[in-house]
């Protein structure tokens, strides 16, 4: 029997089976041996099936994928590999929900673990790459760190699974398959042909390497970009912003899109030497002046009476948001955009702190200080930020600057980390934790000694004065991730103190104890994680890789 007749016989068998032997009698060759048609058909089909299976031939190989680029980083130490697998497995397990127990929440430790692993320059064991990419798929905040850690092999792998496509177009620098930013031809091609997200990533990367090249890339195609794209591209100029960008930004002030104009104006106002900053300084100066008529010198305010076309061109929106008066809105816009260096000269050589301390006439104080806060943040001015933050210990309504926690958190980002932590520590010591969440969020991790101490003390106070632990769950969560692991010892005192039910006036002693236990065990876990990643690996020659069962 030749192959082709065998194939056609099989096709006849299938047809007969599909339609039924009553309708379609099996082929003569099959029926020749006698017996009932269905049995004869099944006999022949069995013979064919086993024959086919026994004679299977290899398929021709498809084009093999280009191998992944070599990764020369050292492989993660073994204990850290196990830990990573555990953290990644915990990701899916902990999503089940339910009340938090005394056990650490592994999900929250992954970002920190990744940061440390990246600092140490390790590469992951390849079999964990799929779980890493899955984790990054579910949590966008993990993506930059996961992609940096996953390295070339991770990107290589992501090409094959549509669920991991985010890795290929992720906007964050390292590890993204952008062309070498020095390869002008490739950069040009991607800029002209790429998807929007790829182009944003490209522009950011080029800008990081050479701000001038980035600007050139953008100005080359600026006129043909869509308005919403222009806004995003313009935003990427924040990186490496300098006076060299001014001519381009000045032209963008005439853009068709209002949002583009506003962003260009905001960027220009962050350049104190720009023409726009100068125009704003002149306008703002004309609104503020010293008044010596009273007992003490004070700031007199004359808010603008109109928003003329020149002001509008410089990015001042003529119409305020609902509920705001026109004049106070325009004043705020002008002061926020004027260089802070304008003011000492305007106010008799006073320092920022002295200026902020001056009384403001006619109830303009709040408006004026809020505008200065925005200016200090925009211009990254630490001196003005300090002045506007005031002393952390006094009630915020009484102090200078702003009582808004969001504004204060932003101001804090402009002062050095150490100073920031000290300020927040004092704030917590004076006011407790109930308003500290946003401020803690801008502090460097792990928290400095004084800051950590202040948080732990305040938690103890909260328990002793009848607070409920769930009122502090936000701060507790932060503390688990941000406290220095060496604080674990201090916490054990607190867990011990709350062993019974009577130790908290709120009757929540048991809950407090559980919360402190989780905090302490999380800190110990973080310490272990850190050790696994940072202690020198054992001598491989002495230890032939024996693993326990």
């Amino acid at each position, binding site marked *: 029997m030749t192959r082709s007749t065998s194939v056609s016989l099989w096709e006849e068998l299938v047809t007969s089976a*599909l*339609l*039924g032997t009553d309708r379609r009698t099996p082929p003569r060759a099959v029926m020749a041996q006698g017996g009932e048609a269905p049995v004869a058909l*099944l*006999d022949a089909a069995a013979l064919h*099936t086993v024959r086919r299976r026994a004679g*299977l031939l290899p398929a021709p190989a498809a084009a093999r994928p280009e191998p992944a680029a070599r990764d020369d980083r050292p492989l993660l130490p073994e204990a850290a590999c196990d830990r990573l697998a555990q953290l990644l497995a915990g990701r899916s397990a902990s999503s089940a929900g339910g009340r938090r127990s005394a056990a650490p929440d592994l999900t929250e430790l992954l970002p920190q673990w990744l940061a440390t692993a990246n600092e140490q320059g390790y590469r992951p064991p390849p079999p964990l*790459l*799929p779980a890493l990419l899955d984790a990054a798929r579910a949590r966008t905040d993990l993506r930059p760190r996961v992609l940096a850690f996953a390295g070339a*092999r991770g990107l290589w792998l992501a090409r094959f699974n549509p669920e991991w496509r985010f890795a290929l177009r992720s906007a964050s620098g390292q590890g993204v398959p952008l062309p070498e930013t020095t390869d002008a031809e490739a950069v040009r091609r991607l800029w002209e042909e790429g998807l929007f997200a790829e182009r944003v990533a490209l522009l950011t990367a080029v800008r990081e390497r050479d701000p001038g090249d980035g600007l050139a890339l953008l100005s080359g195609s600026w006129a043909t970009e869509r308005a919403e794209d222009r806004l995003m591209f313009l935003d990427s100029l924040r990186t490496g912003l300098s006076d060299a960008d001014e001519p381009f930004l000045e032209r963008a002030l005439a853009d068709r899109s209002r949002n583009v104009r506003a962003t260009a104006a905001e960027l220009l106002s962050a350049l104190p030497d720009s023409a726009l900053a100068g125009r704003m300084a002149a306008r703002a100066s004309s609104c503020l002046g010293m008044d010596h008529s009273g007992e003490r010198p004070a700031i007199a305010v004359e808010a603008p009476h109109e928003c003329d076309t020149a002001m509008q061109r410089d990015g001042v929106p003529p119409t305020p948001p609902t509920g705001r008066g026109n004049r106070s809105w325009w004043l705020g816009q002008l002061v926020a955009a004027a260089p802070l260096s304008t003011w000492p000269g305007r106010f008799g050589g006073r320092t920022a702190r002295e200026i902020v301390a001056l009384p403001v006439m006619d109830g303009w104080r709040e408006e004026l200080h809020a505008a200065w806060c925005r200016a200090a943040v925009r211009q990254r001015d630490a001196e003005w930020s300090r002045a506007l933050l005031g002393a952390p210990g006094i009630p915020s309504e009484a102090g200078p600057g702003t009582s808004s926690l969001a504004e204060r958190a932003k101001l804090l980002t402009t002062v050095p980390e150490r100073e920031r932590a000290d300020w927040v520590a004092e704030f917590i010591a004076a006011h407790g934790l109930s308003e500290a969440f946003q401020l803690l969020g801008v502090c460097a991790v792990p928290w400095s000694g004084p800051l950590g101490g202040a948080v732990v003390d305040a938690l103890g106070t909260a328990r002793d004065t009848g607070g409920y632990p769930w009122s502090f769950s936000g701060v507790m969560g932060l503390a688990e991730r941000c406290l220095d692991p060496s604080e674990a010892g201090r916490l054990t005192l607190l867990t011990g103190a709350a062993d019974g039910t009577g130790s908290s006036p709120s009757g929540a002693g048991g809950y407090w104890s559980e919360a402190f236990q989780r905090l302490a065990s999380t800190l110990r876990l973080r310490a272990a994680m850190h050790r696994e990643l940072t202690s020198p690996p054992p001598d491989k020659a002495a230890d032939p890789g024996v693993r326990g069962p």
Partner: protein
Amino acid sequence: MVAPNVVGMLRSSGGQPPEPAVPGAGRPSEPLPPTASDPASRDAGPGAGRAGRSAGPEAAARRAERRAGRITAGATELERRLSDLLRGGLAEAERSGHGLWEETAARMVDAQAPGLAARVRELGALPGSGPGWPVRLLEECALTHLLDAAWLGVDRLPEPLAATVRARVGLTAPAAGRPVHDHWLVLAQCDSSDGKIITRRIWVYGRESGRVALLLSFGAGGGSPRLALPVGMAVEAWLTPHLGGGGLRAELGEPVGPPVPIDAPPRGGPVSAALDAYGHALRADPWLDAWPVTLAEVIPVPYGGGWQLADAHGGDALPIAPAALSRPGLWRLAALSGGGPVTVFGECGHRGVTPLTAWSADGPEAVPLV
């Protein structure tokens, strides 16, 4: 092309007029307690299942005879249903839905033929299961028919084949082969559940003998199977094969000392050798869906909607079985390879290869894929 000889032998021995159905065959289906074939009882300890439950070889023989009679009745009934199916056409099978198959499977459970029952359940899942389902259904119907016919003529079959048929129908063959001493490398361990019983399959490979064996272990009532071995480690022990089924299934004796790490993955071959091994194994057991193989120096290659394992040198490849494409293990395999050659242990059969464990070219550490 050797397997058809076995098929020829099976066909000539079958087709005898069956014994009349046993009276009990018509009663409503009921869940049967674990029987001698049953995993759970086998697992109670070495020899526990073999000895039988009540005293006396005569009683055991009578029980075996009664059971064989029931299975014969079941096989006869199944033959009739297959004939009806073929007479009416497989196209009907898609319309009639699951119910008919479920009922037939329940009848096979009644007949104490779990092997036939499992086959029928699988047949029930085939109609409408994607392109080409009529071909798959015809193939599986034909092999089920072959098994029915083989059982009905089992007395006239030569011994290793008869043992295979008994095992396939669902009668557990005793672990009565010649014991082998070796350092057994644990290649893979995977669990599957039918909702009541968890079946654990552990593949081991003898370092000196080169022999591959399958250790089955069962956990009833949601419990974990008793046997657990660390994948990628080796244990020194005696291993006793069961009779029939191509000699794969075995029982592992008490290991000597703790498991030790291995210094190299098992020896493997190219893709063509894996297919040859499967074809060869079909000689002894035409119902085999797959055969354990180790592929050395293969590269996972994406093509179309699927993947294949291609020889690093040469133009041969094996498709990865459709069922394995949706498992996370596939991505671990691809990640481990990074486009370079790896060693893969898996089950190779007519649906392709199911990768179970892989080793990178860099070290002896086993990466489980299931």
